[in-house]
């Protein structure tokens, strides 16, 4: 992957240097995040109730040939008060896109999102999750790739060659919202002898027909989701990530009918150990103009299912979600999301509150609350019961 990275950088430097560069733009943001926990954590190293974190995510953007060639570079750097693993850097994006008449060629470190549901991103597989940065799986690491995308009358076809694998990041010993044991990411094992140099492939077709938006894909390569194996080492039990080879097919479908969004995500995953189905289905209904104001209220209901039941390593194996999204439609783009999750196998309840608004043209502020209640130690979510927290995020854009 490193070699590929240098190749890309050299190529881009040469390309940019030899071209007439029309525009170079710098934008991005600096973020201050403060977390306040109700209690100390359950595990050694988690004895604190306040955490401060700073991050920066600049973005350089060049385009030339009248916009037919584009280059974007988005590094990311975080410094965390307590968790050494969370103090990390990443190349979120370093990519070159060439636009042809009916196709696009995209290469470099990129982020690709697939899917339609809100509470779980089941079908989204191209990028590795940055679970040290955010525990909810929303943050992703840049994936090195070659991607050709073609627009046809019968939809968009994307072919991917994923050159190199990125390991999942995990919270360190001092991190909160983590598992009982700390994952030892320096000793990851792979099913493939190519290890992190294994080349993965993916093919996706997506289309919009009338009220339907549909996507279908096939993926063959290293599973982004590791199996965590315990290993005793000099009296210390550690978690070693094991990455298996999988073949996965997935479908995402949304029907947009009047004020209703009907959503379906489903995968079939096939590995040496397992062959199973999982899905996330849901509906979103929007009530417009609450009490004659400009506020819209979106009501979301979703259900996550996994064929393997409670033995699944999937947290959302038999879970129901209910959410209310208030969109104020004001000049500050204020929004509030209140959502609750219930695990029908383990009876775990969770509550998530997210509020955000814009201060002025350069500053935004967001508040997030996470609350988990679990009485069943067998539930993977039980490790989070002492991690109830409020998190305040202030961002300055430039």
């Amino acid at each position, binding site marked *: 992957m490193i070699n590929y990275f240098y190749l890309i950088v050299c190529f881009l430097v040469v390309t940019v240097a030899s071209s007439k560069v029309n525009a170079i733009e710098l*934008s991005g*943001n600096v973020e201050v995040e403060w977390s306040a926990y109700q209690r100390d954590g359950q595990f050694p190293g988690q004895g604190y109730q306040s955490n401060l974190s700073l991050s920066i995510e600049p973005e350089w*953007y060049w385009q030339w040939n009248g916009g037919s060639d*584009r280059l974007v570079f988005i590094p990311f750097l975080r410094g965390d008060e307590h968790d050494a693993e969370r103090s990390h850097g990443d190349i979120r994006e370093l990519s070159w*896109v060439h*636009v042809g*008449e*009916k196709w*696009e060629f995209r290469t470099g470190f990129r*982020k*690709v*999102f697939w*899917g*339609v549901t809100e509470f779980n991103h089941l079908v989204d597989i191209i990028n590795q999750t940055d679970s040290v940065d955010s525990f909810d799986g*929303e943050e992703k690491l840049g994936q090195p790739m070659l991607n050709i*995308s073609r*627009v046809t009358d019968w939809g*968009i076809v994307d072919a991917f060659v994923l050159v190199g694998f990125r390991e999942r990041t995990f919270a360190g010993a001092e991190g909160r919202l983590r598992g009982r044991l700390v994952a030892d990411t320096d000793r990851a094992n792979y099913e493939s002898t190519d290890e992190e140099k294994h080349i993965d492939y993916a093919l996706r077709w*997506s289309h*919009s027909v009338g009220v339907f*938006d549909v996507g279908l894909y096939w993926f063959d390569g290293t599973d982004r989701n590791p199996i965590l194996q315990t290993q005793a080492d000099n009296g210390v039990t550690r978690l070693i990530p094991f990455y298996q080879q999988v073949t996965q097919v997935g479908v995402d479908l*949304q029907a*947009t009918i*009047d*004020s*209703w*969004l009907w959503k379906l995500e489903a995968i079939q995953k096939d590995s040496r150990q397992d062959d199973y189905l999982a899905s996330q289905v849901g509906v*979103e209904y*929007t009530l*417009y*103009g609450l009490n004659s104001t*400009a506020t*819209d209220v979106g009501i979301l209901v979703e259900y996550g299912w996994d064929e393997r039941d409670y033995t699944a390593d999937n947290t959302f194996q038999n879970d129901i979600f209910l959410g209310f999204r208030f969109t104020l*439609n*004001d*000049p*500050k*783009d204020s929004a509030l999301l209140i959502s609750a999750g219930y695990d029908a196998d383990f009876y775990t309840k969770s509550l998530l509150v997210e509020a955000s608004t*814009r201060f*002025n*043209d*350069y500053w*935004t502020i967001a508040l997030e609350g996470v609350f988990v209640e679990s009485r069943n130690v067998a539930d993977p979510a039980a490790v989070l019961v002492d991690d109830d927290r409020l998190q305040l995020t202030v*961002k300055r*854009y*430039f």
Partner: protein
Amino acid sequence: MLLTSNKAVLTVTNLSAWVFWGLLLGLSGVSFNVGAETAEEKGLAIATEAKKRDLGWGDSQSTLKMVLRNAAGQESMREIRNKTLEVRNDGDKSLNIFDYPRDVKGTAFLSFSHPIGSDDQWLYLPALKRVKRIASRNKSGPFVGSEFAYEDLSSFEVEKYTYKFLREEACQLGSCFVIEQFPVDKYSGYTRQITWIDTVEYRIWKTEFYDRKNSLLKTLSMTGYKQYLNQYWRATGMEMVNHQNKKVTTLTWNDYQFRTGLTDADFNKNTLKRAK
């Protein structure tokens, strides 16, 4: 979100025909009821002519600066780039890209509008790399917190309203037809609109919007009309005043370019994702 400026317009007054019939009547001495056309027919004829005069522009690109001002005088700003493709026998296709404020930079909005029923709309969120198909049933909702509703900004199609000609009177553009428009879509936020359209070039000068309780809600005024390709008129300035909440949104359109070579291939999820 094409703000079609020459929304309406006008009666088919064919001068030579009038001269002919006038002579005929004068010669025959027979009285002739020129009011045979009803107010509804006349209103529809004006709207049809307005649309007809605005056909054939092909595609356009422009930049838009939006200033939102509340009752206390506080202002906030948006900058948007717009690409629009004229679609014959259907609503237009448009792509809007946000440049400002910074936190929404790169957010883009793809819309396929339809004369009847819901439009097809997709939103691209650059931080998540996610394209979301969004419900578009609610045409009366505010566009990015402004006093413009989505329906105020979609392309003008004759089928969207029924019409009634009210009168002809002097206006800032000279002489104007005053027409009442009744939205066909039951989800519209308005019971009716009253529009002033100049009798020569069929440009909208002013529109009054009446809410579902039939009270005056907003007034839209157009300024700085410029003609492109020797035919198509576009307003440079638009001001929407909300009489009920005292908020004002002004739009300033710049850098209008027509027939830039945009095609259907410039309006899909791939172009939405790379819009920035």
